[in-house]
């Protein structure tokens, strides 16, 4: 019981929080409470974790608050509010189309995290648990931000909160990776602020008030001054593209994903990148409203194809299976950028792909974490025969690999099929489609090469000794299995509510003329 007791200062803080909630709870806010709770609940969880005493019980806060968040976001998915909360912030169709997948991914990663932190009981987890929940809250804020400044603050917050998660292992290599992440990510985030300022000046110079809500910017439309608007587009694409990990701004990704714990990699690859992607989508809509949609689409296709080519080349060369996942993530971010540049059908497929990719990548990162722990190494030169030592994780890893390289029954196959169809449509670009298919093929070669080298063969002698220290318990097997099952479900029986949510998000970003 001792570990559950809270000291006086904490209860005061909780009371203040409750009072704040009550103050927000007056008439007009009551209906929109769920939207606010999506942000406030995880942040309250983060505060609670920061003062929680027991190192062994604390990790349970992650799945508890994650599950509450998932319930709220799925509830909002099924029954969205008629109007978003306000012009600055709210659960609009785009947030509805993407946020629930982040929520699902988080709750499963959090469930895995409980077992993971039990294995790593020697390390204090106060900062880790607290910041994981803070990342969830800030991600929700980023997805629901309808103001360029607010969006920037949320993304900045996520970047900062992720730093201690990255060097949780506290090895010199982890610190080096964190430094790279800070340097590249910080520069990216600075450029996106410069881009936000430039868009503000485009509005001011065009006779507007410099209001940075997306609603006001869309309404001003062609009134935005062209040169400033295009400068802003380039800066925002580079800035948020860095967060997303589009080539050539992807350099932080292999190091960060390679050194961070599996759950952190999964949240970064499936959650943080999506908030940057929706940011780019929102800005693209402003550029299109100003009459330069064609330029925006062309840059998106170009940067997407470049990322695909770079990722395919590195996938053919890498020997480390955690870095392989990072390059695979670069590849899928390229696919998203490409699809977003292919008009309304492409955008619909991109939103589908966000779901398919997040869930499948989650399964891959979690099973890779299991394999990595049991093997005690990460390159195909040191690891082999994992099908014998960790049979279930190896099976999930192989299945996830086939899913992510677009094998038919899984979700990514259907989303990528739609992207191919959109690129060969008259409004798309056939060359882009051909390059896309070629890169998928090379990525497939690269991934199978590494995955089968790790899974097949005979286990190394050293691995046999370490392998038994980390048995495959239900806690580390069930979450990735559920993620795989969800990916399969997206492919086999796409729920009606999801496809309508994507259609509505496309309608929001491509308003009928």
């Amino acid at each position, binding site marked *: 019981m001792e570990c559950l007791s809270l000291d006086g200062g904490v209860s005061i803080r909780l009371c203040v929080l409750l009072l704040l909630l009550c103050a927000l709870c007056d008439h007009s806010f009551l209906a929109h409470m769920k939207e606010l709770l999506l942000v406030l609940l995880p942040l309250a969880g983060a505060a609670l974790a920061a003062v929680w005493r027991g190192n062994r019980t604390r990790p349970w806060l992650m799945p508890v608050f994650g599950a509450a968040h998932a319930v709220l976001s799925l509830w909002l998915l099924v029954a969205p509010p008629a109007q978003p909360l306000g012009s600055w912030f709210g659960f609009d169709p785009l947030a509805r189309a993407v946020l629930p997948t982040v929520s699902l991914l988080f709750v499963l990663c959090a469930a895995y995290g409980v077992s993971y932190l039990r294995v790593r009981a020697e390390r204090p987890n106060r900062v880790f648990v607290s910041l994981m929940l803070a990342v969830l809250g800030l991600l929700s804020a980023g997805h629901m931000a309808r103001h360029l400044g607010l969006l920037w603050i949320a993304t900045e917050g996520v970047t900062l909160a992720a730093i201690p998660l990255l060097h949780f292992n506290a090895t010199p290599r982890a610190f080096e990776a964190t430094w790279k992440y800070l*340097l590249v990510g910080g*520069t990216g985030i600075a450029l996106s*602020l410069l881009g936000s300022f430039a868009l503000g000046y485009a509005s001011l110079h065009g006779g507007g008030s410099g209001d*940075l809500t997306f609603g006001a910017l869309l309404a001003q439309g062609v009134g935005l001054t062209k040169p*400033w608007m295009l400068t802003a587009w380039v800066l925002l694409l580079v800035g948020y593209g860095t967060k997303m990990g589009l080539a050539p701004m992807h350099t932080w990704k292999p190091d960060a994903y390679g050194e961070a714990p599996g759950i952190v990699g999964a949240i970064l690859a499936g959650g943080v990148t999506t908030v940057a992607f929706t940011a780019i989508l929102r800005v693209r809509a402003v550029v299109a409203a100003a009459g330069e949609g064609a330029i925006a689409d062309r840059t998106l296709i170009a940067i997407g194809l470049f990322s695909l080519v770079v990722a395919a080349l590195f996938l053919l060369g890498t020997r480390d299976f955690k870095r392989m996942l990072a390059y695979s993530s670069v590849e899928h971010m390229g696919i998203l950028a490409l699809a977003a540049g292919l008009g309304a059908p492409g955008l619909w497929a991109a939103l589908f792909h966000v779901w398919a990719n997040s869930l499948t990548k989650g399964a891959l990162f979690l099973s890779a974490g299991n394999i990595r722990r049991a093997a005690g190494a990460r390159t195909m030169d040191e690891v082999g025969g994992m099908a014998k030592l960790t049979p279930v994780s190896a099976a999930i890893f192989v299945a996830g690999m086939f899913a992510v390289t677009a094998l038919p029954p899984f979700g990514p196959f259907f989303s990528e099929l739609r992207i191919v169809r959109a690129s060969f449509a008259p409004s798309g670009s056939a060359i882009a489609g051909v390059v896309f298919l070629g890169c998928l093929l090379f990525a497939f070669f690269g991934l199978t090469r590494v995955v089968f080298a790790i899974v097949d063969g005979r286990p190394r002698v050293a691995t046999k000794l370490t392998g038994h220290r980390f048995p495959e318990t239900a806690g580390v097997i069930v979450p990735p299995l559920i993620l795989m099952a969800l990916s399969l479900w997206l492919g086999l029986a796409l729920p009606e509510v999801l496809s309508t949510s994507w259609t509505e998000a496309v309608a929001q970003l491509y308003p009928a003329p």
Partner: protein
Amino acid sequence: MNGTLNLLIGLTMGLNLMALGSSRIPSLIRAMSVQGVVLGVMPLLIEHLFGWEAMLRHWPVLLVAVATITVKGIVIPRLLNRAMRAANIDRDMEPLIGYVPSILLGAGGTIAAMALARSLPLLPEHAGSLLVPGALASVLTGFVLLIGRTKAISQVCGYLILENGIYLFGLLLIHATPLLVEAGILLDLTVGVFVIGIIVDHIQRAFDSLDTRKLTVLRE
């Protein structure tokens, strides 16, 4: 007003070149902190806040100015100096881009920024001001330092100068969106974390070495 403001922006550009040319880290930190103070004064100039009465009326601007001067001119340089002493480094010995090429790049970048800024349309009240070229030149300087230097502290200085450029640009919007000023302050927070990150890293290393010494003492 524009004349004095332009003089200060010119000073900022000069400090950029000084930062690019300095091989010793203390002088790099000094150039950066002087730049921070110069930037902190600018909002007061733009808002014509010269008397106490005017300052009290526009207290948010005053607050921003004081906060900028304190954080950029005093707090961050102190933290960096302390980190430098803890790590026992004084010079960036092997920069990827040498000092003379850095200065040449910076000078070329400043000229390019002037030319580029001319092609961007400005509101009448900003015409003739050097805010845009100054901002672009500082961003470029920041990039050269980030890419060209190898020591973490010099890279942080580069990042701070880049951020100073963004602050300069933000001054164009000072009337329109007060929130963005706050966002700029948040960016400062990033830098704070940046700096703390280094210090933590070094403390960690220091602890390691302390530990080994203790172990030898025990053995003896």
